[in-house]
């Protein structure tokens, strides 16, 4: 069974479109995260939810909006996509805020 899953794995879209990436974890974890990995492999936290409550909201454009319908899901919606949004987006979860994080396989977003 996949612990942290993301869909889709690849997403190619045009500038100006709106898209969503879904994330689900079956580990029973309380905390979930979204990270962005750029072309140089640098990882940066975007958002974190703990028990469905937003606890980390880094400086990202407000075109990005996370939504957590329940503890097992954390989706990422992106409005008005721009070329600079092209990256790999990783979802992760952890039992609590200090323990190790389990990462999904990533979603490679390409904006043309």
């Amino acid at each position, binding site marked *: 069974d996949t612990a*942290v899953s993301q869909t889709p794995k690849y997403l190619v879209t045009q500038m100006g479109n709106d898209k969503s990436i879904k994330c689900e974890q079956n580990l029973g974890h309380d905390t979930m995260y979204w990270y962005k990995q750029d072309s140089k*492999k*640098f*990882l940066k936290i975007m958002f*974190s939810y703990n028990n469905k409550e937003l606890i980390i909201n880094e400086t990202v454009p407000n075109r990005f909006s996370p939504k957590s319908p329940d503890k097992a899901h954390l989706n990422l919606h992106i409005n008005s996509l721009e070329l600079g949004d092209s990256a790999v987006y990783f979802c992760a979860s952890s039992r609590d805020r200090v323990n190790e994080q389990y990462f999904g396989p*990533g979603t490679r977003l390409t904006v043309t």
Partner: protein
Amino acid sequence: AQSVTQLDSQVPVFEEAPVELRCNYSSSVSVYLFWYVQYPNQGLQLLLKYLSGSTLVESINGFEAEFNKSQTSFHLRKPSVHISDTAEYFCAVILPLGSYQLTFGKGTKLSVIP
């Protein structure tokens, strides 16, 4: 705020040779430390972690890391690398207060040469 420095962006090493990937952190308080590995086109996997206790921690695949508080380091070592160890390695820290944000280093690309 805490920060993590991985001094080497790329480390080429011959198969069966030893390797050390360096990691230094900056924090005025105690932190928790992690090493993650990312194989090509995959997500990150935890390699090992230090929360407390013994300063030498080991992974199941032969890697070890030693927490050195005085030098604020958490270097990763393996006595004999395999081709399958070729991957990107990330050092990360959590400050166990406030937002508990996991901060990553910029990564070290380990390339094992046959």
